């Protein structure tokens, strides 16, 4: 069983964590006209990187969302950091 470092709780069992999505997606400004293509890109399209990947995760026991960078081939965790205003 692998352990992931929660930025708030430290090393915990991987089963306590949930993958929420790729980092870096910005929801289109809904006060403006949005094209179907832009919505589609936001809703569905993703990088699905092989290798280092920057992702949003949630630690389900403390319910905090955070950014985790990990290698999607080796599953090695490269870094975790708390979400802040300029993150993601």
């Amino acid at each position, binding site marked *: *069983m*692998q352990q992931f470092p929660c930025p708030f709780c430290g090393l915990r069992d*991987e*089963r306590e964590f*949930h*993958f929420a999505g790729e980092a870096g997606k910005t929801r289109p400004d809904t006060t403006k006209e949005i094209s*179907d*293509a832009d919505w*589609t*890109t936001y*809703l*569905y*399209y*993703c*990088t*699905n*990187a*092989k*290798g280092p*990947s920057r*992702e949003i995760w949630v630690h389900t026991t403390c319910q905090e969302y955070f950014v985790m960078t990990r290698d*999607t*081939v*080796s*599953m090695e965790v490269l870094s975790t950091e708390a979400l802040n205003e300029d993150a993601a």
Partner: protein
Amino acid sequence: MTRHYSALSLLREGLKGHTGWAPLWRSPAPKDTYDVVIVGGGGHGLATAYYLAKNHGVTNVAVIEKGWLGGGNTGRNTTVIRSNYFYPESTALYDLSVRLYEGLSRDINYNVMFSQRGMMVLAHSDAEMELAARTVNAMQLGGADAELLDGKEVQKKAPVLNFRDDARYPIHGAIFQGRGGTGRHDAVAWGYARAADRLGVDIIQNCEVTGFLIEGGVCKGVETSQGLIRSGSVGVATAGHSSVLAEMGGYKLPLHSYALQAFVTEAIKPFMDTVAFSPMTGSYFSQSDKGGLVIGGGLDRVPSYGQRGNTPTQETVLAGIIDMAPALAKVKLLRHWAGIVDVSPDSSPLIGPSGTEGIYINCGWGTGGFKAIPAGGYLFAHLLANGAHHDISRPFDPGRFNTGHLIDEAAGSGIAH
């Protein structure tokens, strides 16, 4: 050289000490130019090449494979073949595949050992029985065979399942598809490769695509570890690695790659002669001809390109199997592995133009690629030969994510992928 397989050729070769068998396929050096290059020598890529040559007369075709034929998901699945889906578009697609599988051994003169032993999707409550009836009706309307079994009929077919009074998931009945079953996965890859090769297709193994040749925004070929290969059009059938190719080709895909694990136990005496799946635990199993139980389950919880198993999902899948058939608790596992599957937002495949002119994609089959190999190849060949969809593949065009015409089989038939 003996090329055709038959009882007579077997006898003749047997008398000659089996010295005259021709290799299944040639291993040519790549030519400079092809009409169509197919990236990915798994089931879908090889089937595409075969149907391009057979149905459309396009024989100047190369299949380019990074490793060895069928070494990806084609060699890593649990070999189940079925068409028990909910939406008419899906039933049309997957039942085409079952029909092609039914005639495949004869068509390609290679025994793919399709054993139509039937498949049961168990229902564990009265409410699930109502939904099972709905699925059976939908399948029958779509032209696929389906029966609704009650608990007693399930017990008669598979007495090894958990009918104890204290079962966590009591068995109320099942959706049964008698034409479903299992095949021999390697034989599907090798059989299609051999048949395509005999029609003139070049199969090039150990040749990795490292980039696309894009001229004026149009794809004109592929750069490979064995040099540049020009091509009229390029078909990409690389399953879990589709996003990696998309990055090279300058197009985007709505896919996540996950590991999907499978297991084989030691061989035991005949235990169950059908395929049983419990949507409640997500686990399913069948018994191979050698006697080993072939076990599968749901996707891993985390996107991954690591082609290996891991313990959290292993525990979930095996716990589910023991819940379904408690007698299996002490059977030992022999092997355990994972393949990387590409999962789309609506759990349905993507067949169509990629977004970069000249590149076409066949991907997003998720956990269900093996059963769809003949249909995937048949329809993808049609698309590559004509530049336009077959009626059955049109609903699966990637454009559906723009228009909102999703074919949501995760919700429709409750599948895991």
